[in-house]
């Protein structure tokens, strides 16, 4: 536990001294502020096109930022010899990987919360912002995206040899899960007999953290009807009290699977030397 804490606290220090972190924060605050202003001018509440755009903004920016920052943190250590030195210490691989995960999670959560805080304060001071519930759901949605994609990024960092490789695969994963997903989904489901579509679609939703989080937020904000009546029927379990628990369980399970897989891969490399 001491080792995990030490690794995490160094990661937090490094994270907050990384100029990248502040660039992302500025970008995020700027866009959320712009959307907030549009929302206040329109005078709308609940699930609107602005909230939809806000969800898309979060989905475009946060997973990419998390994938790159997370995987770079691990590949940099491989490239610069940091891990070679650490592997001569009595440091357990799991403590190292989970420490990295915890430290990066703190950095990213603080950055995003700060960005939201800035736009929230501005909204309160200068006009009508998002409702408190919408604001809270956006923040929760963003934090969940971060912790989920951070798990993937740690696994990516364990798989890649250097930053270039991590960048290439990171952008690829982002494109596949965020931009390409609907097209791939429609293409794959079109080949299936009708009876198989529903179970396949539900299973695929659980495979993509971005999609699972997006659906959860839309349904919780009362915008489920935009999904269409049939699709909404399939995902309205989210609305029920057990839905939130199931959602949380799936997220935690995925994080553990990603990070433990990363630790397993890293340990295999260490044993083989």
């Amino acid at each position, binding site marked *: 536990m001491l080792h995990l804490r030490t690794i995490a606290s160094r990661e937090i*220090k490094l994270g907050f001294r990384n100029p990248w972190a502040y660039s992302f924060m500025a970008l995020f605050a700027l866009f959320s502020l712009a959307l907030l202003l549009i929302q206040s001018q329109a005078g709308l509440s609940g699930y609107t096109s602005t909230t939809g755009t806000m969800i898309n903004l979060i989905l475009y920016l946060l997973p990419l930022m998390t994938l790159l920052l997370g995987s770079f943190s691990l590949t940099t250590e491989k490239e610069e010899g940091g891990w070679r030195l650490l592997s001569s*210490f009595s*440091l357990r691989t799991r403590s190292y990987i989970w420490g990295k995960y915890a430290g990066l999670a703190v950095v990213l959560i603080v950055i995003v919360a700060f960005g939201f805080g800035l736009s929230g304060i501005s909204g309160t001071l200068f006009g009508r912002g998002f409702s408190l519930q919408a604001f809270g759901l956006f923040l929760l949605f963003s934090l969940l995206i971060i912790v989920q994609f951070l798990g993937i990024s740690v696994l990516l960092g364990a798989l890649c040899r250097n930053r270039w490789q991590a960048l290439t695969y990171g952008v690829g994963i982002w494109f596949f899960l965020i931009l390409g997903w609907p097209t791939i989904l429609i293409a794959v489901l079109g080949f299936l007999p009708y009876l198989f579509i529903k179970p396949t679609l539900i299973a695929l939703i659980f495979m993509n953290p971005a999609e699972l989080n997006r659906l959860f937020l839309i349904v919780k904000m009362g915008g489920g009807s935009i999904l269409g009546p049939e699709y909404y029927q399939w995902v309205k379990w989210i609305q029920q009290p057990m839905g939130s628990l199931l959602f949380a369980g799936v997220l935690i399970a995925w994080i553990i699977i990603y990070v433990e897989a990363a630790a397993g891969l890293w340990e295999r490399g260490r*044993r083989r030397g």
Partner: protein
Amino acid sequence: MAKELLRIEKVSKSIGKSTLLHPCSLSVREGEIVALCGGNGAGKSTLINMIAGISRPTSGAILLDGLAWSDDRVAYADRVGYMPDEFQFGSALTAYETLHFYASLRRVGSDRVLELLETVGLLEVRSRKVSTFSKGMRQRLLFAQAMLAEPPLLLLDEPTNGLDPYWMEAFGRLIRSAAGNGQAVVFSTHQLNIAESYADSALFMVAGHVQYSGEVETLKEQYRGAGGLYGAFDRIVASVAPMEREGE
């Protein structure tokens, strides 16, 4: 007679079809200073990495205080202080923060961090970012890192690279003092004068082969008229088949 601390038995390392280190054996006693001498590609770092537990031997065994790395990794690692050859410090941390981080992993307190910073002449610049340090200053910080927990075995890969004459001599004094306290020191170098001045034993390595292993005093005596350790190295390397030398 001091107790044997490190035993290396017919250890070799191959990656694919290329052999980085041919089977070699070595025994290091407590308080002994051993220099691994040779040019680039001689196999010095390969051997040090295997002793440090960073890479695994293809064949043979390494026992530190009777322990193999695979038996008890934690106990093994606690007995080694390792200074790498190639290491790039991140740009964000200061000298104190860097050393304190490694000290925390070794469960060593802040007092020892400050003491070592003073020993290696970096106390005054402890608040400066390591990225602004010269090569010599970074080497001294890495050396301090290896000495943090006063481990029974110090493994130093090219520790004098980039050091000015003052710190080269100070390095010699420090490893002599560590050996005086019973710590064994194994270091690699291509500067034979360092090995001649401070090591008790030397290994001459050429293209992954150990060509000579023995006491420095014996070598100096044997090659007195031929330039001491330099002469000895030249003659031993000259006796190696040209094909093997090309592998360097």
